[in-house]
């Protein structure tokens, strides 16, 4: 599996994400936002957490219009995989690769703590290593993680089994407790919690490790 991790000015989880991919056995290439294209043979694009472009205008909005995101969109539209975490999820909604948007947390506070997540579906390369309804502990660290989708979109997400994770105890006001959603082809996942921060015993938890191991299982080239 060859993973590309995008790096924007203000990304700060890019190396954590690269480390999690590498620990699962992937080859990782870091890709600067000004690049026009992805390296040849990339299986999955990681869009990391952080504060791309200082969160100016809206979280993820400037990054979504950067040169590399044109390549990211083309990759996803060809059926390529992508994983957006935290700010990366915001970028994926801004590119419209995923539906909905992330608003300011309902309590207006930046929240940084480990929270229990409920696995909404095991039917994806990202989540097949978990069981549906399994509860896993993953850290969150965000100010704008309050997921919004209108009723029609929400109904479609439910109907198509595209809610990857929900919060067991909703910390931020997200509609339907949503913490992460899949694209219609189930190959793009965006989530506010940080699985890459729970992927090594030294992190204090390893519940995120299975996501990277699971991706490796499914995307390892024959």
């Amino acid at each position, binding site marked *: 599996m060859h993973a590309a991790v995008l790096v924007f000015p203000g990304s700060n989880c890019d190396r954590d994400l690269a480390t999690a991919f590498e620990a699962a056995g992937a080859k990782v290439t870091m890709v600067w936002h000004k690049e026009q294209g992805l390296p040849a043979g990339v299986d999955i694009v990681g869009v990391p957490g952080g504060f791309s472009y200082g969160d100016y*205008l809206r979280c993820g*909005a400037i990054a979504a219009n950067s040169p590399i995101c044109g390549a990211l969109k083309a990759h996803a539209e060809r059926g390529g995989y992508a994983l957006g975490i935290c700010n990366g999820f915001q970028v994926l909604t801004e590119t419209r690769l995923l539906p909905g948007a992330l*608003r*300011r947390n309902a309590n*207006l506070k930046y929240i940084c703590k480990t929270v229990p997540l409920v696995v909404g579906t095991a039917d994806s390369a990202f989540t097949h290593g978990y069981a549906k309804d399994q509860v896993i502990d993953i850290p969150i660290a965000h100010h704008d993680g309050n997921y919004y989708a209108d009723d029609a979109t929400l109904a479609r997400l439910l109907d198509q089994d595209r809610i990857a994770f929900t919060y067991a105890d909703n910390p931020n006001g997200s509609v339907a407790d949503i913490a992460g959603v899949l694209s219609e082809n189930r190959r793009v996942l965006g989530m506010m919690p940080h699985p890459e921060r729970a992927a090594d015993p030294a992190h204090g938890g390893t519940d995120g490790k299975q996501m990277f191991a699971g991706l490796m299982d499914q995307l390892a080239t024959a």
Partner: protein
Amino acid sequence: MKARVHVMLKNGVLDPQGEAVKHALGALGFDGVEGVRQGKVIELDLAEGTTEQTVTEMCEKLLANTVIESYTVEIA
């Protein structure tokens, strides 16, 4: 020429910042504030002849996230 773009959260999308401002106004003793919505104003300096339609495209592509925000364009 100048254009001014107002971006607001759509009606029906909860605005927690507006709610917090409303509570703060109440705490200061301002009675009768029944609702507060917070948005942003973006002022653009534009080459003469730029059309309103171009500014609308800017809003659709970048200045507003039309999933949750609505916008209005004023050409000055």
